[in-house]
């Protein structure tokens, strides 16, 4: 009896220690992260991770410009210097041999990391590669179509639009053809009337972020739907570029057409210029941008007029293209930041524990997503359905619901090796066309296709074909 009691007491004493024992005492996990705001959550969890797992989290910040080269150098040298890497999912083709698939981990602990909590659009565009789970989305970057709903809802404007174009003012526009009509309709000079009031500034129907460098995104927003119903960057069977298809040419012509209704100087516009003109100056009617506007819906400036209506930001999926009576709309999912475990890590299990701590559904993860300073956009159902976010920012539910809906038709960016070159070649030539250096859209895109073929040859056509297939699996 005494012996049984003794054993029981010993067990009671040991049990808490067993339950609350740190799983990886003394282990150091090194994470290389995008420097600055993106690194805040990693630093913020250093103490918690130490307490919970006994893991010393070593955060190395690298500027985004250098991230690719530094990581690739370490990975190809198989130095095992990093356990976790943050990278742009477009680089997966280059990183693949050095990345640890997460399937076994996810299966082993019954998806405690919440892979299935990540929206399918992000899983497909960022985390899956060749059918394997290779990464966890950190930043659910995507693009949304924004418009001045306050202006669209004005009865006078609605009636005038119907008289001019013989169809109801579309709210929101579903096709790029409608966007052209709307942009033409709403572009007005200072002194003219808009929504029954006199404009105090020139007003423009539409604007792209058309500075050389990231201009290709705004072309792809058109290229993808204009090649509906099954848009492709390449022919999957031959890797022949589809970038100069008839749809692609029409998409580029649409882009140039809309320049007529864009603010002067739009060819020099980067993020700041478009955001400021649209959200702070209130002089742009429609535009496509990242989710910053949606998150900051309540900061939209009123229309430039005396006694303007209450500003209302409209949000929707990007306009599409009509094929056989059906409109196909796509939401381009940016190849944004993800985290993976390095194959050469000596502490893979500990690294997975860190990933789970950082990204599994829960208040900590949602907290970082809600904080606009961090720059991590929502990517999980637990983010989009967050009660805490709704309580903290009244009215945010509209943006969350509309983005969730828009992401039902998510479309990935190119992810094969050399994705940056393919996109930059496109960017350069589209910029040349908009600047008048190419006479026709066809000539422009034939040039791009020729360069894409050269890049295919450089990386190996068969290899690229394999990577392109993996992108969709």
């Amino acid at each position, binding site marked *: 009896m005494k012996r049984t009691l003794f054993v029981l007491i010993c067990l009671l004493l040991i049990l808490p220690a067993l339950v609350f024992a740190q799983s990886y005492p003394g282990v150091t996990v090194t994470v290389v992260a995008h420097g600055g705001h993106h690194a805040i959550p990693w630093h913020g969890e250093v103490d918690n991770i130490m307490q919970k797992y006994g893991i010393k989290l070593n955060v190395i910040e690298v500027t985004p410009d250098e991230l690719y*080269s530094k990581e*690739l*150098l370490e990975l*190809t040298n198989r130095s095992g210097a990093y356990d976790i890497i943050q990278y742009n999912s477009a680089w997966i083709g*280059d990183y693949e041999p050095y990345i640890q698939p997460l399937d076994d981990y996810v299966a082993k602990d019954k998806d405690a990391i919440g892979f299935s909590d990540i929206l399918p659009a992000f899983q497909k565009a960022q985390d899956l590669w060749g059918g394997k789970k290779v990464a966890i989305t950190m930043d659910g970057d995507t693009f949304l179509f924004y418009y001045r709903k306050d202006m669209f809802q004005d009865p006078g404007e609605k009636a005038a639009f119907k008289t001019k174009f013989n169809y109801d003012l579309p709210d929101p526009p579903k096709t790029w053809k409608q966007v052209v009509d709307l942009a033409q309709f709403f572009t007005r000079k200072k002194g003219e009337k808009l929504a029954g009031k006199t404009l105090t500034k*020139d007003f423009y129907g539409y604007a792209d972020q058309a*500075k*050389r*460098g990231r201009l290709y995104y705004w072309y792809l927003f058109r290229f993808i739907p204009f090649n509906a119903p099954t848009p492709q960057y390449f022919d999957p069977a031959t890797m022949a570029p589809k970038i100069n298809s008839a749809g692609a040419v029409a998409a580029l012509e649409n882009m140039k057409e809309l320049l007529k209704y864009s*603010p*002067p*100087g*739009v*060819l*020099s*516009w*980067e993020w700041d*210029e478009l955001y400021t*003109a649209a959200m702070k*100056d209130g*002089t742009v009617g429609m535009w496509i941008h990242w989710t910053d506007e949606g998150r900051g819906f309540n900061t939209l400036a009123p229309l430039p007029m005396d006694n303007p209506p209450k500003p209302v930001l409209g949000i929707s999926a990007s306009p599409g293209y009509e094929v056989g009576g059906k409109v196909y709309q796509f939401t381009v999912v940016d190849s944004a930041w993800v985290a993976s475990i390095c194959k050469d890590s000596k502490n893979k299990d500990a690294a997975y524990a860190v990933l789970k701590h950082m990204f599994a559904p829960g208040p900590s993860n949602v907290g970082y997503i809600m904080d606009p300073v961090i720059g991590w956009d929502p990517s999980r159902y637990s983010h989009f359905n967050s009660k805490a976010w709704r309580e903290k920012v009244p009215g945010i539910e509209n943006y969350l619901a509309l983005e969730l809906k828009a992401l039902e038709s998510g479309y990935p960016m190119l992810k094969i*090796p*050399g994705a*940056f*070159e393919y996109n*930059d070649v496109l960017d*350069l030539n589209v*910029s*040349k*066309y*908009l*600047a*008048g*250096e190419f006479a026709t859209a066809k000539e422009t895109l034939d040039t791009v296709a020729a360069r894409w073929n050269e890049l295919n040859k*450089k*990386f190996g056509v068969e290899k690229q074909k394999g990577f392109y297939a993996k992108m969709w699996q």
Partner: protein
Amino acid sequence: MTAKQRASFLVFPTILVLALIVIFPMIFSISVSVRAFDIRIREHPFVGVQNFIAVLTNRDFYDAVKVTGIMIVAELAVELVLGMVLALVLMNLPAGRKVFQPILLFPMMVMPVVIGYMGRLVFEVRSGPVNYVLNLLGIESLKWHASADLALVTILILRIWQWTPFVVAVFLAGLLSLPLEPYDSAQVDGATSSQVFFLISLPMLRPVITLIVIMRALEILQTFDITYVLTLGGPGVSSMTMSLYSYLLGFRYWDVGQASASAWLIMIPLSILVTWFVRIMQKGERVEETR
């Protein structure tokens, strides 16, 4: 140890350092330029002159050469004239010199990246102060860096603002160091101010001009930061400089082989041009001395 051996021994560290920091990178760069060198591909096979041919058959390379050439000629011309005028003004205003000299150097202290961002604000088409002033004068807004025609002009304005003070400073130092005797003689002979300038000051400043031209030409050739921030070479390739072109090849497309080839393709003719210019100036100096 003989004196010659001792001299060689003492010079050896300098040669070693030079070899490490100048000669080795140059040889490595030549070696890279004749190989298919992409950091993502493990093999870097020898390809002979293929990288050079690839660069020479790319239209964008010629556009970059053209843009850089225009920049060197236009920027140098404006900076030399403006720099000389300002230096002469300061030369004749000893009191003002003390005040303006430090102020003039301020633009040189600003980082080019900052100037690029400043340019984005100052030349913004709709809200920039430059167009605001033009509008006040009854002139329509210009599209500046948003237009293929004016992007390079915008960059030139910013660069001239930044670098003219340097030219002023060097000219001023040159003018202050000139001997006074020729000026006294000219005064006695009744020479006009323009005669004094063109026949005395300018010829005596020949070494200074040579120095400015070489230093500025080489710096202009490296124009990168402002262009990167302000236009990234665009719209199209209207403001694509050689260094930006090489950067994109090497650090965006990771084609280090072609990037090295393009660097050599621009360095060789430039070295010839600089040597030719120096010789012409030296020849002029010798003619002046024998007069």
